[in-house]
């Protein structure tokens, strides 16, 4: 879809397409500020799920019959929709996975097979456990070294320190595009250039960026880009690994099974071509098709307007919270988006989260699967409000009043 056909961004109209937002929680209108954990689903995605299982349900890539061909067409159409959305050069570069974690594990295993003892993996101090643990496991398996680029107190990557850790032994940089806890936007394009300058590859964890901004993997020049479907208005259990074709071609398969083979004998198996080489077994067909619908939905939106709107919403919330005595915003990067994490002196995040819940407001509390980051800030966790384009300023006002009420009760 070209720029000209994009619909103007009107939040009231957008909200109507998300039935989950129209419900009462403890007799209060739901305010859903846990979009960093998962997003709600638009009606088109819900309809597509229903339609798939009511009508098109059949196994794909192997059937001679009508329904199988229909399902295969829809599934492959979704792959192309996603390819176009992230501006990948070829649909073969779009691998369906279970989600971000699965995509990272695939790369850690498969790209990891190409590495040898002494090679280095460079991550940052703000990574989600999913972008830490698979690399630790790889390092143990292949005797590699894991390096961690530090961040400053604002929650920004210290580029000079990153540069110092990057060297000819670095084979992969794995970095989050947007921190799920802090909202920090990392300069991934710049980091990709730096990685490539020393001959390293770069994996960008897009779990928190794909739903908030336009993504162009070619312009970013990342070697891998991973994300989860459920955070981008699609179903759970489906995600995407984008990888550059030449690199994916070199990598051995991750899992063996049906669909990923070309010819099997008991002596020897030849593998299928991309993307199927990395998609063993019957995939999450409904998930893939409906994720495609989510991207069709997103394609109609002006993502620059969305990004601007979400940033304004987060800034507004942050400015209001900042006025509370004893409240500290965690993550004050110059470039951040749609996430506001905070702690209140003498009050446990869990208590605030529980009281907000009882006021109909869904936030996340705890360590957000970033325990090393919590250790860095020396806090047990934060309260995190994470916004999506269907949230409103009025909701933020109610949230702020609810936070104030909660703090007063807990003091």
């Amino acid at each position: 879809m070209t720029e000209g056909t994009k619909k103007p961004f009107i939040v009231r109209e957008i909200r109507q397409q998300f039935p989950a937002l129209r419900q009462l929680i403890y007799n209060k209108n739901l305010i859903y500020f846990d979009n960093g954990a998962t997003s709600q689903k638009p009606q088109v995605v819900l309809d597509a799920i229903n339609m798939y299982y009511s009508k098109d349900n059949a196994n794909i890539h192997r059937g001679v019959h009508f329904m199988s061909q229909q399902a295969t067409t829809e599934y492959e159409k979704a792959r192309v929709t996603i390819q176009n959305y992230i501006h990948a050069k070829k649909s073969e570069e779009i691998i369906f996975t279970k989600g971000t974690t699965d995509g990272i594990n695939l790369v850690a295993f498969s790209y990891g097979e190409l590495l040898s003892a002494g090679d280095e993996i460079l991550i940052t101090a703000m990574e989600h456990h999913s972008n830490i643990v698979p690399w630790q496991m790889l390092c143990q398996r292949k005797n590699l070294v894991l390096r961690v680029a530090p961040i400053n107190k604002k929650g920004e990557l210290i580029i000079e320190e990153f540069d110092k850790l990057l060297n000819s032994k670095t084979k992969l940089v794995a970095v989050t595009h947007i921190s799920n806890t802090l909202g920090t936007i990392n300069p991934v394009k710049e980091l990709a250039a730096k990685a490539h300058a020393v001959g390293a590859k770069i994996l960008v964890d897009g779990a928190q960026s794909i739903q908030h901004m336009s993504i162009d993997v070619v312009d970013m020049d990342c070697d891998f880009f991973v994300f989860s479907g459920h955070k981008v208005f699609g179903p759970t259990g489906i995600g995407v690994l984008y990888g550059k074709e030449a690199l994916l071609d070199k990598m051995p398969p991750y899992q063996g099974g049906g669909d990923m083979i070309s010819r099997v004998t008991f002596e020897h198996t030849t593998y299928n071509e991309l993307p199927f080489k990395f998609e063993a077994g019957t995939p999450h067909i409904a998930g893939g098709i409906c994720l495609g619908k989510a991207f069709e939905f997103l394609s109609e939106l002006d993502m620059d307007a969305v990004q601007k709107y979400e940033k304004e919403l987060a800034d507004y919330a942050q400015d209001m919270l900042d006025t509370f005595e004893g409240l500290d915003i965690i993550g004050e990067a110059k470039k951040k988006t749609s996430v506001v994490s905070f702690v209140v002196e003498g009050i446990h995040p869990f208590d605030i989260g529980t009281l907000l819940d009882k006021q109909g407001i869904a936030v996340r509390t705890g360590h957000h699967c970033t325990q090393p980051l919590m250790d860095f800030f020396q806090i047990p966790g934060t309260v995190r409000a994470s916004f999506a384009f269907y949230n409103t300023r009025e909701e933020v006002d109610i949230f702020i009043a609810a936070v104030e009420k909660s703090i007063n009760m807990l003091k």
Partner: protein
Amino acid sequence: MTLEDKQQEIIQEFEMFDDWMAKYEYIIDLGKELPLIDKNKKTNDRLIRGCQSNVWLDSTVVDGKLIFTADADAIITKGIIGLLIRVLSNETPESVAKADLHFINTIGLHEHLSPTRANGLLSMVQKMKMTALLNLDKA
């Protein structure tokens, strides 16, 4: 007062509250009042780590009855601990082991004891029951 009487008493207390915030206000007050566990007893072997909040539990047997003291880093967790201790402490190991803590359900706090909540409370109750089982012969 039997263990069941104590549960009924708590249920009656909670009937006074007509909304969630009032209920939680009361729990928070209980949390603030809870006698803290002895500082030197807040050790790692008494720590029950939850995903959200941490709980420390200590138990002793005095005159054939189990005495529990506990603490938590979150005040709501602490308030609910206060309720659990009120019911389970100063009871024989046998009554603790057999206790059906139905009051939690009735007053609407079961979510805090669900395995998904991961705040250490479910593990705490399990540990209390385990302690009771291990002390059955001391009654």
